[in-house]
């Protein structure tokens, strides 16, 4: 009897295994979460050094228009660390790309789910997947060899600039927005369509007045996702934007974005110098913006749920 009681009371091998497995898997999970915390911690602590050690004022950094950190500006006596041209450049390409991509994405998604049901979806699904798969440097190469010369031929100048960046980013974020919009449209209940058609709506009236209305929160989320991707995209933009940190005064003059300055600059500065710290501040802005996009997505999601 004692043997049996002992055996029952003892933790069995499979319980031990289970505990071990659980421990291993939660360790992996915590590892991932701590990487996120580390990324934020390190980048923000380096990014703040500009303001704490180098005593650059936040206002000067965010709203100054003179970006040239290695040269001391004669008028102000401070190095040129005004990041406004870069912020404006990033914002401009992001919003313009989203503006152009949205109608295309919605049109394609509606085509796949509402208009050309099975065959259309069968053709467009791989198209979207392949567009997602193309690496960003290849977009950059196409931008340099096709988009930039075309823009140059039409508008003159170098062809590098916000317009070229917008065109490249438009194609890059198109598949992101499209595939998420498709998912949302598929989520609209079937009886919405049936009831709209039953009261005599044409297909377009149904799409426009019922489906797209019902899917608005999802579509907005898709657009914000696309914008987050555009804002953080580095190399493709850097190749076509022209890399001149001037306040952008036209769509076809060379400009710069946060990411393009970062990719060009980090290797050429000494760790701990002002020139380097201010680049980390740019990285911090990128991080915070990606956080803002995330919060926006959650907010839209919650608003959508309430309806």
């Amino acid at each position, binding site marked *: 009897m004692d043997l049996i009681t002992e055996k029952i009371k003892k933790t069995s091998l*499979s319980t031990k*295994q*289970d505990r*071990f*497995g*659980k421990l*291993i*898997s939660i360790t*992996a*999970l*915590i*590892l*991932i*979460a701590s*990487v*996120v915390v*580390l*990324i934020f911690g*390190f*980048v923000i602590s380096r990014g703040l050094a500009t303001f704490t050690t180098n005593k650059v004022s936040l206002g000067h950094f965010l709203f100054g228009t003179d970006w040239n950190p290695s040269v001391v500006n004669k008028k102000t006596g401070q190095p040129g660390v005004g990041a406004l041209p870069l912020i404006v450049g990033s914002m401009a390409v992001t919003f313009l790309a989203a503006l152009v991509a949205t*109608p295309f994405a919605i*049109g*394609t998604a509606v*085509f796949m789910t509402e*208009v050309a049901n099975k065959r*259309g979806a069968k*053709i467009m699904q791989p*198209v979207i997947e*392949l*567009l997602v*798969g*193309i*690496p*960003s*440097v*290849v977009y*950059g*190469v196409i931008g340099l*060899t*096709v988009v930039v010369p075309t823009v140059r031929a039409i508008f003159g100048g170098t062809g590098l600039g916000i317009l070229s960046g917008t065109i490249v980013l438009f*194609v890059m974020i*198109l598949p992101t927005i499209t595939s998420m919009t498709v998912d949302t449209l598929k989520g609209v209940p079937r009886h919405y369509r049936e009831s709209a058609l039953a009261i005599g709506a*044409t297909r*377009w*009236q149904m799409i426009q007045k019922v489906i797209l209305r019902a899917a608005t929160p999802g579509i907005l989320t898709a657009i914000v*996702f696309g914008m987050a991707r555009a804002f*953080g*995209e*580095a*190399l493709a933009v850097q*190749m076509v934007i022209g890399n001149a940190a001037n306040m952008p005064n036209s769509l076809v003059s060379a400009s710069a974005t946060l990411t393009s300055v*970062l*990719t060009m600059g*980090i*290797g050429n500065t000494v*760790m701990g110098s002002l020139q380097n710290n201010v680049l980390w501040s740019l*990285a911090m802005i990128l991080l915070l913006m*990606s*956080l803002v996009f*995330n919060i926006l997505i959650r907010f839209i999601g919650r608003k959508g749920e309430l309806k």
Partner: protein
Amino acid sequence: MNAKTADKIATGVIYAIASSVALILVAMLAFILVRGLPHLSWHFLTASARSFEAGGGIGIQLFNSFYLLVLAMLISFPIALGAAIYLNEYAKPSLFISIIRTAIEVMSSLPSVVVGLFGFLIFVVKFHLGFSILSGAIALTFFNLPILTSSIESSLSQIPNLQREAGAALGLSRFETVIHIILPASVPSIVTGVVISAGRVFGEAAALIYTAGQSAPTLDFGDWNPFNLASPLSPFRPAETLAVHIWKINSEGIMPDLSAVSAGASAVLIIVVLLFNFSARRLGMMLYKKLTKS
């Protein structure tokens, strides 16, 4: 306007939009392949790159890309698998889990250049690894983890709960159920997810330019001792990948046969990535057939 005319116009516009999107893709692929394929030769694929004279190849870059991919996958797959198992099999809804899910979501939307800079700061500068394959592989791991985790998690969640109940009814612990029932059943879709993410990792450049570096020292392909710096297997040597190479030669613009090399290298990159994407589903289906004996 008549509702019917509006309907017809809208349908036409939608068709036009969808076909223009398809056209964009076809035009891009055709452009890259038509320009690139004529430059491909055995010499181009195996020779090392030359910065100042024509006739260089992409041999070392190609090898580096695959080696980095393998290393990054070796590091990220077990972690992602563990995390996905916990999220899908053990986790109960709680504040802790929702915080972690948010963290993974945030991580998946981080700009890859920031991930690269973080890798640069920690591994290249703080740990003195320098520009090295190891730093690059870890940066790629950070880039890859959130996507891989959520792809594996959705593979696991597609397995019906019936299977878990069956396992429990047989007296298996949760862990045994996962190892012996859930994982084998989800292998095909996990493999599909892994191969797709491999395609993404292969084409990634922004996370690598400041971690794996932008130089490709000559390698001695007769030396397979990973501790020699000239060995292809050495994890401590700088390693420019194919994607980084394309970016670098285009932004430097000093290579005399730049457009040829750039076109050829882009074609190779696209072909490899497309192969990954196409084979992902095939491989998954093949495995499914084999494993289920159907």
